[in-house]
């Protein structure tokens, strides 16, 4: 970066903020059963598209009190109009019954911090559990893409010549095919209604098959330049086999690059999951994922009346933002 002249460098701060945000999202996903006030499949029939119920500390008369919420009541089922009941503040309980925070008295209706979805399920709970699904698919797919890319890129960079040419042409071919078209075609060629675990694996596999060329091309570049360095020649002349040289000496040179690639692939795959599920080709509505949740928002009327159905879009943006911040200081691999 020759362009950075003097002064304080803002990059490490940004990078740290990105790392912290990523860690926060990961913790939220992992701790979903503790953080979420409900079960992801729990349906509250009188709370379809219910508005968010933010926790408060100041009540309607302006007095301070412990954290509480006002219950919402359905006033018109046809128009799905809700009303906040300001006369009855309900206190929240912390660390009770295995949850971080919940409403102990749910006789007045459930506590839906971010509101309800189209079936009356808790949006916050589904957002947290959806993070597990969406980030899980993305992480597994990124791992798969890296494995394929590492092997093919390593072989291409090491072997050179015809093998290199063939593998790189092939990867170029996969790269230029529009990813979404390929993913759509592959996904629709496979059975649609499957158990969630199967859908999870199918999607991860498809994403890995589309995503590997980026990794392979980057790995190939590093290997091709590293193998002419003195230490490689020295290892070979000391009797190391080609496999040993490649696996023990050359592949570790790609570590930093691979870390950056993995982080970069995650938001792309999160978005791919969301796109597929939004289009109805991914997870079914019964499995909470950010894409399947966004289906509620596909109707402009719903979107207008219940903007909180966009919460999963916020999740996607947050993951992407964290990664962009994190990679600000990284040498960005060409995409």
């Amino acid at each position, binding site marked *: *970066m*020759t*362009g*950075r*002249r003097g*002064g304080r460098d803002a990059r490490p701060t940004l990078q740290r903020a990105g790392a912290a945000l990523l860690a926060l999202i990961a913790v939220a996903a992992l701790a979903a059963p503790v953080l979420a006030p409900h079960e992801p499949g729990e349906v509250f029939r009188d709370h379809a598209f219910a508005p968010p119920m933010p926790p408060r500390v100041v009540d309607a008369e302006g007095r301070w009190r412990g954290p509480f919420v006002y219950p919402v009541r359905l006033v018109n089922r046809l128009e799905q109009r809700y009303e906040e009941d300001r006369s009855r503040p309900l206190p929240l309980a912390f660390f009770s019954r295995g949850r971080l925070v919940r409403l102990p008295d749910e006789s007045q209706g459930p506590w839906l911090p971010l509101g309800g979805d189209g079936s009356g399920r808790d949006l916050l709970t589904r957002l947290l559990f959806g993070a597990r699904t969406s980030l899980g698919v993305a992480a597994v797919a990124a791992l798969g893409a890296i494995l394929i890319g590492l092997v093919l890129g390593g072989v291409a960079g090491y072997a050179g010549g015809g093998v290199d040419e063939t593998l790189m042409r092939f990867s170029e*071919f996969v*790269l*230029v*095919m*529009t*990813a*979404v*078209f390929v993913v*759509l*075609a*592959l996904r*629709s*060629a*496979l*059975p649609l209604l499957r158990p969630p675990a199967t859908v999870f694996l199918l999607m991860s596999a498809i994403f890995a098959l589309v995503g590997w060329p980026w990794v392979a091309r980057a790995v190939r570049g590093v290997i091709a330049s590293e193998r002419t360095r003195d230490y490689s020649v020295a290892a070979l002349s000391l009797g190391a086999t080609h496999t040993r040289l490649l696996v023990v000496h050359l592949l570790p040179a790609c570590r930093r690059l691979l870390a950056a690639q993995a982080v970069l692939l995650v938001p792309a795959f999160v*978005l791919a999951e*969301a*796109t597929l599920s*939004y*289009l*109805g*080709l991914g997870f079914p509505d019964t499995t909470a994922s950010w894409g399947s949740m*966004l289906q509620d*928002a*596909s109707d*402009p*009327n719903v*979107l*207008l009346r219940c*903007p909180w159905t*966009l919460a999963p*879009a916020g999740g*996607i*943006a*947050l993951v*992407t*933002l964290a990664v*962009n*911040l994190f990679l*600000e200081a990284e040498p960005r691999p060409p*995409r």
Partner: protein
Amino acid sequence: MSRYIARRLLFAALLVAVSSSAALVLTRLAPGDFASGLIGTSGGFEAVARERERLGLDRPIAVQYVEWLRGAVRLDLGTSLLYRRPVTELLGQRLANTAILAVAALLLATLAGLPAGVFTGSRQRGVLPGVVRLLSLVFLSLPPLVTSLVLVLLAARTGWFPLGGMQSSSSEIGGALSWLTDLGHHLVLPALALALPLAATLERLQSQAMADAVSQPFTLAALARGVPRSRVVWRHALRASLTPVVSVYGYVIGGLLSGSLIVEVVTAWPGLGRLMYEAIRARDLYLVAGCAAAGSLFLAAGSLASDLALAWTDPRVGRA
């Protein structure tokens, strides 16, 4: 240069052939077909079989493929089962719609992203460059799926723009001018949804390239000769810093096509992406293959154009 173009054309032809064939075969191999989707489970097994025979879907896959291929070399991509019209006829209209959207988004993104990148790249410190940089970091994190949904929400709230579609039903009446303004009115939302993240990408790239260019000796030399700073930045450094941005346009066009699929679905823009989506849902295999062919053609044209632009900004490229 002509040899280079010939090689690119060959690659493009291969891409079109392979992707459309793969799309056809994949759709054919997929469980369920157009007939079973059309009639569903209520019509009974025999009705499905009859429909399948009528549409010629009961033949072996190899026969079907060879027949399609024979037509395809004569630019006849078969008849859409869903629309009952020739696939090529459908594709022409839809491809044009997607091209309108993509070109508008590309223009918007370039007009906003490039100058912003030059601005932030040539000034390291200050409040305004910091604000622009922050904005572009935010927009970089909003994929078209998110921007299009948020923009639909905004449009629904304010009523400034139509929520979807490409044309109002009344626009035919008022003549060419009102037709055009109506189209533009409908275009704003999807084009903006595509352009915002793209503008941010271009801004970041151009900013980096610009920062590299202004730290080169030639800019210092120009400044020392007394050339005004703005002229150094916008003339000398800009030309030298364009290569990285122009070289990503090939990828950008691929990204535009991917992004426009979801934007077209969200905002009901009748483009290629939505046609592909409909075709896949209905298992209309000829239409799927046709869309894949048109998509690859679009990509190949885009990357060829970006290569030619690259040769223009960096004269070393074409001669290599």
